[in-house]
């Protein structure tokens, strides 16, 4: 009897300690997470970053995106819908975070398509066909090329551009900014400089709605 009570008491104490420490840790983290990007606004939006929406839109969403990331592909239309529902009031800035091995070449491909004014159709084609060119989270450049056929891209020009220092420099700048902003997973969103308190569509929607409300007055 005494042994049983001791065991149960210890088990309960361990679980309570775990829950308490988790709660303390998460609340202390969310307190610091709003503070970090304030000091790092410059790293959040760079002049070279591809952008949709008016420059003077009251709400700016910065999304760190990896074309090989499944969740990024899921979020892409959701964010688009959000912008369509609030015309002219939301601007989105995409930053590249090619965390999947080999995904960097696909980003270079997208940047090369951008030089031919075809970034958005290329990105949408790749996100929609992700399972074909990135099976098992392993991006395959040859298969990715196939998805871009029919967009009328000049492939020779693209290959030359993909190796250009300008594009390499952009990607490494994005990766460096991701590191300095503590972005370790994709997609990562910042709404008017604020990171999501925790990951999820609802959290993103809430943050955007708050920002819209705060700027509509």
């Amino acid at each position, binding site marked *: 009897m005494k*042994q049983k009570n001791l*065991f149960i008491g210890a*088990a309960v104490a361990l679980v309570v*300690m775990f829950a308490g420490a988790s709660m303390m*840790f998460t609340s202390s983290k969310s307190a610091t997470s709003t503070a970090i990007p304030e000091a790092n606004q410059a790293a959040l939006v760079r002049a070279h970053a591809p952008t949709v929406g008016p420059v003077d839109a009251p709400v700016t969403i910065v999304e760190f995106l990896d074309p090989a990331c499944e969740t990024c592909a899921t979020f892409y239309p959701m964010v688009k819908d959000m912008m369509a529902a609030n015309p002219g009031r939301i601007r989105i800035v995409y930053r590249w975070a090619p965390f999947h091995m080999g995904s960097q070449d696909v980003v270079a491909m997208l940047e090369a398509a951008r030089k031919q004014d075809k970034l958005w159709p290329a990105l949408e084609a790749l996100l929609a066909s992700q399972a074909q060119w990135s099976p098992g989270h392993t991006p395959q450049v040859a298969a990715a090329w196939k998805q871009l056929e029919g967009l009328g891209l000049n492939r020779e020009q693209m290959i030359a551009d993909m190796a250009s220092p300008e594009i390499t420099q952009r990607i490494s700048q994005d990766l460096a900014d991701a590191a300095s902003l503590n972005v370790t997973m994709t997609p990562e969103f910042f709404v008017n400089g604020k990171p999501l308190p925790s990951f999820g569509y609802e959290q993103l929607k809430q943050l955007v709605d708050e920002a819209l409300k705060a700027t509509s007055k």
Partner: protein
Amino acid sequence: MSADRQSGRNHQADDARAWTLVFFAWLIASASTLGALFFGEVMRLPPCSLCWYQRIFMFPMALILPFGLFPFDRSVVRAALPLASLGALVAAFHVLLVAGIIPERLEPCKQGVPCSETVIEWFGFVTIPLLSFVAFAAIAALLTFAYYRSSK
């Protein structure tokens, strides 16, 4: 007759002491399990491959050892001691890797998080692999004592 009763009482006292030893082994295993989950799931530190092997040896002990406590059954040591010993070996390897005593080229994990990376250092010397090694070694010692202390 009276000698039998005498030895019976001794067995009981021995088993009670052995029970406490296994109980503490379970306490360490459970605290380590929750600690590992805290690092991984709450602090979101990605576990390297050696950490995964240590988890494989630590987590089952938190679940298996209570079966030897109610009612007390010393044969649980035979199930748990191999886990504790193997875990201690992996943890020792990990500690030496972090300390740089085992050269980098022997490092088994090439992708993801390198095992030689130090993510936490308390008081200048306490790292996660060291905590893990101390826990495995303590559990192994407690279980060994419990086995020889208890009656067959």
